[in-house]
């Protein structure tokens, strides 16, 4: 899988992971403080922000694996930055990335419009929720409360990660720095190099 990858694409993912790693950590702290007052549901509103890197990278690079690899790298960078959530972040990053990857794989990596990106956000939401359900012990909560959490997370994944990710990448495309990546090739309608 990785043989078709150019080094510059991997380094790009890694640098994006650093930029968003800082953003992610900021939100972890915001979420932690909130969670003290309103419980684990505090994370659900902002959960979409943690999926954004996989959607941006897939939208730009458009190769199989871009979502899952970028999200895992972002999680690894978060761990390297030395935060207290620690190594389990790598696993949650991997699972979130797989959620988005599943959606892109279902379209055979051919469609990258807004709906697919939002669905990818939903995919990450569902995957990460199943993982969180197990590890966070959500089984003790009443089903209504769990459904509410899942609903908010799906909404957050679609809006923040899908819509927000697309808006950010389109803004980035307009700066002209993405020449040489799949995203600008498809815009011009050229054959894939």
């Amino acid at each position, binding site marked *: 899988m*990785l043989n078709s*990858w*150019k*080094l*510059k694409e*991997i*380094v*790009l*993912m*890694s*640098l*994006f*992971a*650093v*930029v968003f790693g*800082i*953003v992610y950590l900021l939100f972890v*702290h915001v979420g*932690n*403080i*909130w*969670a*003290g*007052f*309103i*419980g*684990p*549901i*505090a994370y659900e509103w902002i959960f979409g922000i943690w999926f954004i890197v996989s959607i941006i990278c897939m939208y730009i690079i458009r190769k199989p694996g871009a979502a899952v690899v970028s999200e895992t*790298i972002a999680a*690894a*960078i978060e*761990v*390297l930055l*030395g*935060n*207290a*959530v*620690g*190594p*389990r972040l790598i*696993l949650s990053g991997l699972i979130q990335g797989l959620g988005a990857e599943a959606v892109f794989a279902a379209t055979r990596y051919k469609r990258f419009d807004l709906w697919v990106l939002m669905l990818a956000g939903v995919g990450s939401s569902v995957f990460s929720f199943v993982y969180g359900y*197990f*590890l*966070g*012990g959500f*089984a*003790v*909560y*009443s*089903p209504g*409360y769990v459904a509410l959490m899942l609903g908010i997370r799906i909404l957050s994944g679609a809006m923040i990660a899908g819509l927000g990710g697309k*808006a*950010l990448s389109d*803004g*980035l495309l307009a*700066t002209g*720095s*993405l020449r*040489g990546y799949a995203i600008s090739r498809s815009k011009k309608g050229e054959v894939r190099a």
Partner: protein
Amino acid sequence: MKHALHKMNPSVKFLLITICMFTMAFFFDPWTPFVFWIGILVLQLLFSRIDWKKWLLFMLPFFVTAFGYFWTTLVFAEDQSGPVIWSIWNVHVTETQLNHALSLSFRVLAFSSLSLLFALTTNPTTFIMSLMQQLKLSPKIAYGVMVGYQFLPVLKDEFMHIGQAQRLRGITQEKNAFQRLLGTRRVLIPMLAGAVRKAERAAFSMEARGFTGERRSSYFQVIKVGKIDTALAVVFLLVLVLSCTNRLWLDF
């Protein structure tokens, strides 16, 4: 003794912590995560030299989170069987609810101490090198991550410069929290554009110096798995087993 956790192979440590966490996820009584948490703290006390002031500072937000889990579970718990032991206004707290609430809170504390144990005793570079040498992570990704990690201070500076440049041109920060959130786009896009250019330059110079991304047979920094790892693995698993079987030896 005091350096054991620092010298331990990061990949082994990572795998052990993962095993411990997944095992803990199956328990819903308060004692198992509590005993495990204490066990982790003892391990840390015996085998590492960490700054406990720093530890407390990092743990503080998790105490807050644990409290959040505690009261949410009390209010929204599914299983409400057992005798009522507490009543505040209209909320009646049963024994099962209290047990579940305590269990989830201790789980948060146990997981975060476990993570902190890793974070405070592991060198980031060694961790990536070990992932590549022991867990067969692709060198392309391993060195790619290292490049990103090295750029961290540069990107931090750039973040400040962009903010300063925008203020010079008269862009002020909004007071409204929501508008400020939308305003991050103005800083993020120049930062990402800079990141794209840096990535291209870094990748180009790596390739110019002969980096192919293929697996090597020898490394400059060799990371090994040794006796210390076996010993600590046994200790970790012992703590895990002891906390899972607390019913047998803990009598209340």
